[in-house]
């Protein structure tokens, strides 16, 4: 499979009035959103084959990640998008879709970090507006929703502190009696 074609279809093109819209390109160079649900599995298989033949193509892996997400297979989508980011760390779409995945899962802390990274990678005004819109929506949800803490700190200190507290209370009662 020749993988020398240009980038993915979702990137915007300016339509000139009267210009004929080209039919959708063949699998795998096709926007996953335009693939009918019943053909999604077939589309994913074709993309996987293409990825195997061209393992260093970040766009292909991004496309596969989007397709997996549309097929409700989150962890495979995550894997594909992470691979795309590793291959081409400056790829806006890979980074943006990775962030979007977390946003849609409502894991907002992670989504905010990743969307901010995508914002830094944005190279066109369209990319910039996409990332900004997502970031503002994430921040709105964080502001208006019920936040749960991200458990990132060591448990040792509170655990030891808790045991000390129990010992102090025991000592207090023993001494009191």
């Amino acid at each position, binding site marked *: 499979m020749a993988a020398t074609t240009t980038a993915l279809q979702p990137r915007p093109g300016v339509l000139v009035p009267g210009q004929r819209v080209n039919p959708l390109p063949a699998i795998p160079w096709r926007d996953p959103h335009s693939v009918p649900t019943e053909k999604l599995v077939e589309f994913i298989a074709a993309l996987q084959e293409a990825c195997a033949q061209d393992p260093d193509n970040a766009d292909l892996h991004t496309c596969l990640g989007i397709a997996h997400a549309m097929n409700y297979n989150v962890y495979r989508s995550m894997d594909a998008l992470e691979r795309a980011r590793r291959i081409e760390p400056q790829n806006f779409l890979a980074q943006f879709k990775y962030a979007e995945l977390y946003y849609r899962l409502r894991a*907002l802390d992670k989504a905010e970090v990743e969307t901010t990274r995508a914002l830094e990678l944005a190279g066109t005004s369209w990319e910039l507006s996409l990332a900004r819109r997502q970031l503002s929506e994430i921040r709105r949800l964080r502001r208006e*929703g019920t936040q749960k803490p991200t*458990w990132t700190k060591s448990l040792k200190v*509170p655990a030891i502190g*808790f045991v000390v507290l129990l010992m102090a*209370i025991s000592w207090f009662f023993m001494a009191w009696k």
Partner: protein
Amino acid sequence: MKRRLSLCVAVLCFAPLGFAQTPATTPAAPAAAAPTPKPITDADVAAAPVPSADARAKGDPDGALTGTASDIAVSDAKKGVTISDLVNQVGQDKIAINFVWTLITGFLVMFMQAGFAIVETGLCRAKNANHTMMMNFMVYGVGMLAYWLIGFAIQMGGVGAVANLGGTPPLNAEHVITLFGKPFGIFGQNGVFLVHRGTYDVAVMVLFLFQMVFMDTALTIVTGAAAERWKYAAFIVSSFLMGAFTYPLFANWAWGGGWLANLGANFNLGKGYCDFAGSGVVHAVGGMTALAVSMIIGPRIGKYERSGKSNAILAHDIVIVLTGCFILAFGWFGFNPGSTLGASSNGSLRIGSIAVNTMLAGMAGSFGAMLYMWLRYHKPDASMSGNGLLAGLVAITAPSGFVNPVGAVIIGVIAGILVCISVEFVDRVMHVDDPVGAISVHGTNGLWGVLSIGLFADGKSNYGGSWNGVTGSVTGLFYGDNGGQLIAQLIGIVTLVGFVFTLSFVFNLLIDWLVGQRVGAKSELEGLDLPEMGALGYPEFELKAEM
């Protein structure tokens, strides 16, 4: 900030010492000579003044004429009121007070279902609101049917006479086996359908209502831990089995005359396993089952990364979460004080201190949790403060009838801190996804509540001179017990973790094989409202998390 907070805490802790008042000395009253008792006769009783019909016909705006000797039921109209009638009336009044008390507190406990429903729904994502509410709504009916069918008979079928409710003699058949030369009550046998073997009885009905709402509280704990990915059909089957078997079995052992309650009488371990209102029987059983179900169905998609790192998933409505916590705190005034099963009998006036203990421990729990989160994560954290309140209430449920206010506050503060540490532990170390923190609130703190009796029971409670058939008051290690009570409580904890968790795990594993416990990934990501329930919780809201 930390230093300022620490200073505030220190001031709050030591302030009461500065303001402590010296108790006022009261002059000793002179000893008065006791009057010679004069026996009352039927004639005295019959001569008691009653308002005339004319006076009553004019109305009774100040209530002075209503409720007099004329309202006493007489056995023989010709004789009028006799001492025998009077005594019978007193007996019936006592039981009536206890019936009304138990029923009203039972109604309060029933209202806790609403609190659980909105706490859990608020802590889930909006796309699952209908599903979470429906689970909490239907667990009431499903659990009740299971309990009516067989659960109540297993739990209370051999409890014997419950004196506060006028005796429940039909509940007299406990299946007993003999081990180590001692009788071990395993399950009750009377009361199936509430008509079996004479159980169509007013006292049995009151007992059923009160115990049923307790059982439903245990069941609704599981729906929180398994929210956002539990298949509705599996939930129905799982709840039915829990209401019919898992809960009633342990409840029989603790409250229905089973072997745990008799550890004191049989093995001289304090007063046997004590659990005044159900930290173990209700909350730890719910928590252990929640743990089993959560382990079987696995975490929500996106909760953990491939590396095992946990992602915090946003809940959708803190307003209803905290409103639900308030409803629960209100309902808990039925849960704990109601567990005396009466307001008019030996020791039942402790309902006052039980209610105060409940209040103190709950708010101490929310204070402990808020302080912990503030110091550790620099925000007071509303959802964890709410969980702290519930943790304090859960922890005080078992000891509420046996401890003093100081013990209650200490138990509550520890529960508030413990729930935060436990949530972190369950999430990060065990990698069990619990969207609402139910395992920590009810499981961990249920066990802590059970344990705390063995430490903090002050030996001042006196419910008719004995508890679980052993003379004396329940006393913990800190108040001079030899450790026997603590061992009895530890045996209860081992049983909860070893037996209840295992039985729940096996039941739910079977359901997983037969029905499937988890919804498909597509349903989960779209939100369970449409695929599982057929209607959105918030149909006119814009939910943007569609995959």
